[in-house]
């Protein structure tokens, strides 16, 4: 019977978790200390869609590896609230991300902007690739040179005589 209860609980747990996260998110207001996510009303469904998309491209600054759309930290609630307000004010997605970067730094977005110090990530990647290709080509070239192919080898008369002498000697030793 206990096992059955546990099984039912396990089955329910994802639903339970979803419930607590949903209930715990929101903005802390001065008159009401409980955290409740406000029911947001957008002037168009397009804004609402952009709101949800932006929530998943901005990082929660208090928690590791969570987007603000996935976090119930107070600072995330505040950021969601601000995103909604800026959207209604007619800001573009890029301007909203810029607004957040101005306050919380480059780390706030999951897609760092190209330029400044981030350019080095790209430069270093391409430079390293080019370097590796050069090294591989260099090695291949050295190994494919004519001297490595025994069929091509030309010995001088003197060298042939020495080779013959060495062979004779080794045959004599093994006998």
């Amino acid at each position, binding site marked *: 019977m206990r096992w059955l209860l546990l099984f039912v609980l396990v089955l329910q747990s994802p639903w339970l978790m979803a419930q607590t996260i949903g209930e715990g998110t929101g903005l*802390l207001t001065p008159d009401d200390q409980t955290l409740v996510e406000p029911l947001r009303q957008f002037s168009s469904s397009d804004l609402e869609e952009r709101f949800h998309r932006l929530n998943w491209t901005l990082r929660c600054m208090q928690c590791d590896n969570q987007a603000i759309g996935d976090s119930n930290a107070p*600072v995330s609630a*505040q950021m969601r609230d601000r995103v909604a307000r800026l959207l209604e004010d007619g800001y573009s997605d890029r301007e909203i991300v810029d607004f957040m970067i101005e306050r919380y*730094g480059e780390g706030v977005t999951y897609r760092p902007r190209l330029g400044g110090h981030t350019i080095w990530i790209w430069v270093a990647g391409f430079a390293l690739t080019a370097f590796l290709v050069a090294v591989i080509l260099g090695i291949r070239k050295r190994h494919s040179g004519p001297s490595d192919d025994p069929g091509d080898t030309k010995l001088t008369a003197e060298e042939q005589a020495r080779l013959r002498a060495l062979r004779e000697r080794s045959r004599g030793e093994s006998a």
Partner: protein
Amino acid sequence: MRWVVFVPFFGVLVAATVFGYMLSQGEDQGSAPSTRIGKVLPTLSLQDLSDEDLIRVNEDLYGSPFLLNVWGSWCPSCRIEHPVLNKLADEESVRIIGLNYRDTRDGGQEWLVDRGDPYEFTVFDPIGEFGFDLGVVGAPETYFIDAEGIVRHRHVGILSERHWDNTLRDVWESL
């Protein structure tokens, strides 16, 4: 020229060492990057914690260097930090201004009566709007600001006596 192949491995090793060192440095100091460093404080227009008719603006803060300490009566870590601030204000006459962050007026006032008031004055930011513009992630945080209102240093988390003795006193004296 065979050693050339090992250059990338060596490069990665060096990079890992440097980044590892930088990471460990950051955690020791409790200092955090802020987009506000080197810039002037955002526009402030908030009520004083003890007097709602008194509106504090940027000019009330400037004139001599100060610490802007973000706190709230809901914040357990601030409890640990508060005696340190009291001591700094009493013994080293450090000018500290409080930013009461996402708190209730009663809660904030009660806190100062119970635990002592190290602040020249405290501004009341119940929704955390000014904190948001400043890039506050959570309490406690302490900003080192010079006489012109330019943010010079940001300390995240509890400001302990050890931090103060190790590095922060030097930062304060350099303002």
